[in-house]
């Protein structure tokens, strides 16, 4: 269907090899759309699920798999906030910083996470266990302040619950 030239194979891929299962999953996603570029965001998420983040070498590998331009994949990879371009911890903690959580004291919760983990927002603990990031309204405002650890939604969370809450995430 597409006539876009495949140029991904000419770009150095830093030794990155796309896992065969991921490649298959990306091609399956591609089948949902009339044009392959539409699967690029899902492709990035598939790679990220395996590696924790999207290594630079994955960009040309995804472009080659979908038969689209490297720049288009790169442009998307740098736009979306939940595509991580640097290594992150095993568990990413997303702290909702929007208005309802602001009004239910998320700033105190955020500061308590910073104190407890000894890192700033956007950083990863030295043991590679946790990364702290802000996120827009998690859509659970009746339970504010809310956080998302991996795929688990928690709320309302109070600062003194942090140590016990994090025990479940090795």
């Amino acid at each position, binding site marked *: 269907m597409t006539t876009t030239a495949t140029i991904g194979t000419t770009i150095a891929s830093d030794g990155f090899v796309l896992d065969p299962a991921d490649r298959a999953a990306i091609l399956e996603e591609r089948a*949902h*759309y*009339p*044009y*392959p*570029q*539409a*699967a*690029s*965001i*899902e492709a*990035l*998420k598939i790679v990220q699920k395996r590696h924790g983040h999207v290594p630079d070498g994955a960009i040309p590998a995804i472009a080659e798999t979908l038969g*689209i331009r490297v720049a*288009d994949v790169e*442009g*998307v990879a740098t*736009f*979306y*906030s*939940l*595509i991580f371009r640097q290594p992150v911890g095993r568990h990413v903690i*997303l702290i909702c*910083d*929007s*208005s*309802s959580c*602001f*009004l*239910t004291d998320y700033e105190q919760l955020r500061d308590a996470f910073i104190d407890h983990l000894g890192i700033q927002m956007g950083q990863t603990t030295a043991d590679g266990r946790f990364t702290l990031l802000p*996120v*827009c*309204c*998690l*859509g*659970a*405002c*009746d*339970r*504010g302040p809310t956080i*998302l650890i991996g*795929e688990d*939604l928690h709320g309302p969370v109070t600062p003194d619950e942090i140590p016990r809450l994090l025990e479940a995430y090795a």
Partner: protein
Amino acid sequence: MSRILQSAGERRSETHPLTWRLHDDQSPVLLEEYLDTGGYAAVTKALEQYTYESLTEEVKGANLRGRGGAGFSAGMKWSLTAKGGDAPRGYIVCNADEMEPGTFKDRLLMEQQPHLLIEGMILAGYANRSKQGYIFLRGEYHLAAASIQRALADARADGWLGPDVRGSGWDFDIALHTGAGRYICGEETALINSLEGKRANPRAKPPFPGQSGAWGLPTVVNNVETLCNVPGIVNHGADWFQALSGDLSSDGGTKLYGVSGKVNNPGLWELPMGTTGNRILELAGGMRDGLALKSWLPGGGSTGFLLPEHLELALDFDTIGKTGSRMGTGLLTVVADNQSMVSLTRNLEEFFARESCGWCTPCRDGLPWSVKLLRALEAGEGQAGDIELLEQMARDLGPGKTFCAHAPGAAMPLASAIHYFRDEFERGITRPEGEAHADPIPVGSV
């Protein structure tokens, strides 16, 4: 997981069309139970009794207004979508990118009753001669994604989706598309770009999506709650839908209303359209910890602040629109008397600054500037003229200055906070005009 705070005993099919099947234990309504309780009957009825024109007319007659916040008539949107004669068959896209601050209603519908959404999408697909639907779901809604995926597979296995839907000769299927962050994806043309695998910059209009949307084909984008209202309209008719709100509102139907903030009982309720803010706040148990209500947002971070006296108004699009605010999503965010309007406005503008896609100058550069000024006021380091400058910025961010509604959405809480609570902003001014802020905040710090 969202909760509806009315028990199953309180919710009835004739008065709570969106939520009457929901379980008190919040487990999802699966296909078998959905079918046993009249689910997909509207699809059968539409395929047997309606043409695409008459189905569109039925929804238009019901005056179903867009529940994503804009309030545009869904039937009107469908009637403006190219679909007759030689028009190419396009797409139905469900906007499930629920990220409006203070909004948590679509999550409930998708986690606990995905078949109602799917049924609504099939009907929208039929009315628009579509061949394919997409549910654009925000990436953080993992439970909703699992619930929808299962429901799509079950509906497909039972012949409600796929080639030759229930022997009608019409092909229609739905795919789930999950996002990867960015609030701007909820803007319908940005959403279409994101669906196409591009950066989520909004598109210039016209052409409107109804003429040239996803991949250049006629595309209808409707919110989750909007689509969930369609099966009831088809089953019971436009007059029934209008009667649901009785004398409370000229808008038909029910609305998922909610409250967040420091109230005793935050949550969601399905109530007639036009229910007053007072009634909703009463259901939420009033303010907690002995606090008093100072202000409220009627439906998300991009709506304007209102005062306690406005709680007596009907919460519908036209009534709230007359106050200068907007009903938006209809989920109230309440502000207590001990909470700073300057700090809350700073929080909101930080959100809009971060979530700007950067395409238009007033939005990209104006919003971080507003944050800088608000932070100075918050720290008591404002200078004379800052408030007037913020007011000027709110005007410059208003409708018509940018491609999409992101900047006007940011301007609305800013302008209204200053309008109603100017004294709080004035308290942040300690320096004469022309004197630099004591601790300048770098522009790039947002």
